[in-house]
């Protein structure tokens, strides 16, 4: 069993991964990853919620710098604006020519790279819907 990029980032619901977030019970703001205090109203009453599995690319960049963590060169990272109205940072995987601001993308989970010891790491990423594995 490979290790995950970080604990508590997503969970499977009916075979589909969804990102785990916090929602402030007072002002309803959502945060990913989870947090204990709402920075908008300073309330410490937050509940765990699951985020929408799709959104659009908010911004992105192709990284040409060699990375110990990601063998693929270049690779793409960005922020995805989810239907919940918040952005999440993510790897973007798919046809590089098409990964650009405004592109609809969906969440997936799989091998995204390696850890500092060179072991495979499972992470979440977003990809264009027509490239989602069935």
């Amino acid at each position, binding site marked *: 069993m490979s290790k995950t990029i970080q604990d508590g980032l997503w969970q499977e619901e009916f075979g589909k991964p969804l990102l785990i977030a916090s929602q402030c019970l007072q002002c309803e703001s959502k945060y990913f*990853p989870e947090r204990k205090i709402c920075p908008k109203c300073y309330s410490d009453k937050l509940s765990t919620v699951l985020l929408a599995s799709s959104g659009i690319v908010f911004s992105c*960049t192709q*990284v040409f*710098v060699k990375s110990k963590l990601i063998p693929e060169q*270049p690779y793409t990272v960005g922020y995805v*604006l989810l239907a919940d109205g918040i952005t999440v*940072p*993510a790897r973007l995987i798919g046809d590089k020519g098409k990964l650009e601001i405004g592109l609809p993308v969906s969440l997936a989970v799989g091998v995204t790279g390696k850890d500092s010891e060179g072991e495979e790491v499972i*992470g979440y990423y977003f990809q264009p819907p027509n490239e989602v594995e069935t």
Partner: protein
Amino acid sequence: MNVSIIGVGITPFGKFPHLNLENLGFAAAWEAIRDAGLTPADIQTAYSGNALASQLFGEFTIGQKILWGLGIHQIPVINVENACTSGSTAFYLACLAIESGAAEVALVLGVEKMYVPIKKVLDAGANDLETKLGFIVPGSFAMRANSYIKEYGLRPEEMALVSVKNHQHGALNPNAQYKETVTVEEVLGSPMVVSPLTRLSCCPQGDGAAAVVICRSDMAKRFGSKAVQVKASVLLSGSYDNPPHLAQWPADTRSAQKAYQQAGLGPEDLDVIELHDAFTIAEIIHYEGLGLCPPGEGGKLLKERKTWLGGSIPVNPSGGLLAKGHPVGATGVAQIVEIVQQLRGVAGARQVPKAKVGLAHCMGGDLQGDARSVTINILAV
């Protein structure tokens, strides 16, 4: 503020395999103390900015070590780490110390050695989720560039002009790491680092140190025209709104407003600016954060050459981070040294004529779409 700068010192910036942190820090601090006409015995407190020595050399509390080389001991010495604003945060704290009456004369040092024989990749926030996902520091600027281009239609050739301008300025600065001019074609044709930013759109790594001596303004009178007043000194963290505003830094706008209010001045009063051009796009966005032009018009300001030497508001006459270089912990202090030299009228070939009011802006780190730290210092004669 009742604070004035009475001495400045700076080393050349670049790759100096034969020099260590102590050599660099010593040179800048000694020059600043001598420039103030003081001796090390006159320094009552010191703030030393450094960002990377603990990671690169396993060093800590280097301020005490460097200052001991000058004989300075038995005073409060505070080491400051605040990413790229380490040095300017040290300056901010020293100003507070003078204002509060805790000290009458303070030394501010910024020092960094990034060029090491065994090339080490800088792990910025190795435990951050973004870093684990593959985000790297230049990437956050690249995403900003892409958002800005999408929102305002900035063209790559226009963005490259930042690098062209700052290299042209750097060629006039004997302390700059790069003294060669570059063309738009060279900037765009250099290897891609993070799209759309090419190597010549990014600042280099290097070594260097800078220092200033400050004191209460009423004591500074005896230094005559060499003394430069600190009109405002501001430090703020970001607001981290979500969705983020990637075509601006909210922390810039807030810090600038606070600094202008503190100084009783506005952007129209500025004669010269040093700002944090770690990447080409950053300079354009900072123009807007500082209120030099409305949002989206930074490219126009640059194209009309208003921010070039000879223009109405020259920005980064030193060459900026892109050409002068960016030894992280030294940068914030080096920007202040440049403004002091401009206001004293001793900046040589890169002198802005009759500069009376100058602003130094520095930005450190990125967190969820805003800066972790912004400093703005407004100086005047």
